[in-house]
């Protein structure tokens, strides 16, 4: 009974313990960061509930954020554990009916999400209780839990039907989702749970059309681009081809545009929205500067850290290719890292979009800070990616790098503001800092090359 569910849960648990055993320091850091994040979240909730600052985070906002996160995670998990999983072939070929096997996979994913939700919400409630925040909201908690359950069902249906030749089967869930976001009411989502269950059950019943779904993609048009290049260009071209075909470059540009727009908006109106009039004078220019910083930070995480880490993290089973070829480690590192120059170009749309709101007065600082942050992202992410080569995209690594970068960029943003304020020709100081940073980048890439070498004892 439920053998497939048990196997998936067992494998997940063992993987977690194995990772903790292999990289205890990173996991300790990660646990600290999670605790810190939950404390900040609980404290903010407490702060907003007892002090009226004219800014309200509605329950619906939090609900839909949680709903959206769990839905995305379910889509990704179902894709990994079912749609593209070769291992499932074993259970699908037994006498157990295939729809039951798919259901058992879904059940495992459902249980994983529920455990995550219960763990995090319990931790939040515990910390909120320590802050003496009123946590007696049983009805709201029940609704949130039902919302998470609904998000898992909707995510499951989306995953099954998206990776299928019959994509029209997505329509019922998409209609449900459309109404949910349109109404923005928690009760609507909770009440439509039976419909979500119904469509997911039907999708599971017809789920085999999604299994190992792949389109054989012919690329005759790109044939003219195939030629012999030098080593650096070859690595660059390969990385860029994958980023292009995975449509990641578009997603980088989209993120830069959206982040630029919202950062600019909050730069201009953030104080009015978030800070009560009585204390507005005392916070001075802190909030606009913070929104500019956060905007750059988000763009850098997405366009520099994420691809920088993945240059090597994704090389799990393909490392044999570059390892057996007569290529210097330096050339591998420079070639792969050179692909990030194109990723940098995708971060530039951030500047014009934020400038719509903040004007051109700070354009030099903004450009300098974007370039500085981007290089800093590369300096930190490439050696860490090389160190953990083949470990795939690890959320823990990404989170750790993000936190490290937050501290570095926070300090540099403050320094940049001081330079802008007190130096007559800040451009010179900015250039000097960039030159020093390029030297650090060179050292970082050299260290990465050293890490990549085989460690003969």
């Amino acid at each position: 009974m439920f053998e497939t569910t048990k196997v998936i849960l067992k494998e997940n648990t063992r993987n977690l313990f194995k990772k903790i055993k292999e990289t205890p320091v990173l996991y300790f850091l990660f646990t600290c960061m999670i605790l810190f994040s939950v404390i900040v979240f609980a404290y903010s909730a407490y702060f907003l509930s007892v002090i009226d600052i004219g800014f309200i985070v509605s329950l619906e906002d939090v609900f839909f954020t949680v709903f959206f996160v769990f839905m995305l995670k379910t889509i990704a998990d179902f894709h990994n554990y079912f749609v593209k999983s070769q291992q499932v072939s074993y259970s699908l070929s037994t006498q157990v009916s295939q729809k039951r096997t798919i259901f058992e996979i879904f059940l495992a994913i459902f249980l994983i999400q529920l455990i995550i939700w219960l763990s995090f919400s319990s931790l939040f409630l515990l910390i909120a209780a320590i802050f003496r925040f009123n946590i007696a909201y049983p009805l709201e908690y029940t609704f949130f839990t039902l919302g998470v359950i609904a998000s898992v069902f909707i995510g499951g249906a989306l995953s099954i039907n998206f990776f299928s030749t019959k994509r029209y089967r997505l329509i019922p869930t998409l209609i449900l989702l459309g109404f949910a976001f349109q109404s923005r009411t928690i009760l609507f989502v909770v009440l439509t749970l039976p419909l979500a269950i119904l469509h997911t059950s039907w999708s599971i019943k017809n789920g085999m059309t999604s299994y190992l779904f792949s389109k054989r993609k012919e690329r005759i048009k790109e044939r003219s681009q195939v030629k012999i290049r030098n080593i650096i260009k070859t690595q660059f071209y390969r990385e860029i081809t994958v980023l292009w075909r995975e449509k990641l470059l578009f997603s980088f540009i989209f993120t830069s545009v959206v982040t630029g727009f919202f950062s600019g908006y909050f730069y201009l109106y953030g104080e009015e929205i978030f800070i009560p009039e009585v204390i507005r004078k005392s916070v001075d220019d802190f909030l606009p500067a913070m929104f500019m910083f956060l905007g750059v930070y988000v763009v850098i995480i997405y366009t520099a850290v994420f691809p920088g880490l993945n240059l090597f993290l994704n090389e799990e089973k393909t490392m044999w290719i570059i390892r057996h070829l007569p290529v210097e480690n330096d050339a591998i590192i420079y070639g792969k890292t050179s692909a990030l120059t194109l990723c940098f170009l995708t971060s530039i749309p951030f500047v014009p979009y934020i400038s719509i709101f903040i004007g051109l007065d700070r354009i030099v600082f903004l450009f300098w800070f974007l370039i500085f942050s981007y290089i800093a992202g590369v300096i930190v992410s490439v050696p860490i990616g090389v160190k953990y080569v083949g470990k795939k995209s690890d959320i823990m690594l990404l989170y750790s790098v993000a936190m490290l970068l937050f501290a570095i960029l926070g300090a540099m943003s403050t320094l940049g503001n001081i330079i802008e304020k007190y130096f007559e020709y800040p451009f010179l100081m900015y250039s000097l800092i960039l030159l020093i940073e390029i030297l650090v980048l060179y050292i970082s890439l050299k260290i990465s090359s050293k890490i990549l070498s085989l460690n003969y004892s």
Partner: protein
Amino acid sequence: MITVNNVTKTYGKITALNNVNFNFDNSHVIAIMGENGAGKTTLLKICTGILPFDNGEITIDGYNIKKDSIKAREQIGYLPEMPDMYDRLTGREFLFYIGSLRKLNDAENRINEITKMIGIYDFLDYEIGSYSKGMKQKISMTSAIMHNPTNLLLDEPVYGLDPLTSRTIRDFIRNKKGTTVIATHSTQLVEQIADLVYILMRGHVIHFEEVSKLVSKHGSMEEAYFHIKDENNV
């Protein structure tokens, strides 16, 4: 020519290769046989510079794999047991990628020639992610031989291939000059193309002999293999 002197490789507490010695010379096709986990794949990976080892020395055409790693790897062609490649590249793009890294100026002609020979030419413009196991094996085989290496290291070279391609590969190996080392479980393949066979058991070489002598003594390579295994009580 590949020489392996007193090489030891451990994975934690498990010893994959225990002080082994090989001399793969230029004039022979050499087969490495042994049970699962005997150390065959590990030996090939060490010789290609993919895996580090604990003790000993390996030279490829006189170049030390640790100290002159680049020169040593220039002389090698390698086919892994499970050829994982970049799924979003087409077969043609992957082969040109390898050709570029190997600095082959006549890559296009070589790729066309080899892929036509082993029957994958018509699928070169499809993404590798959509290939079957056999198709991946053919692309990987092309990447291993496109630079005419003097030393060819092949891990289960005909596994997953159709009969015609298997025969083409066997003929190619038989006619190729230089050193060819094959790690395989197939006694039939060893009988068909190998001149010498090493039998590995739990990281040790337990037997080494000419294939023709073994076959004439025991009737077939399969019988010879089981006889040697029994003799060594493993």
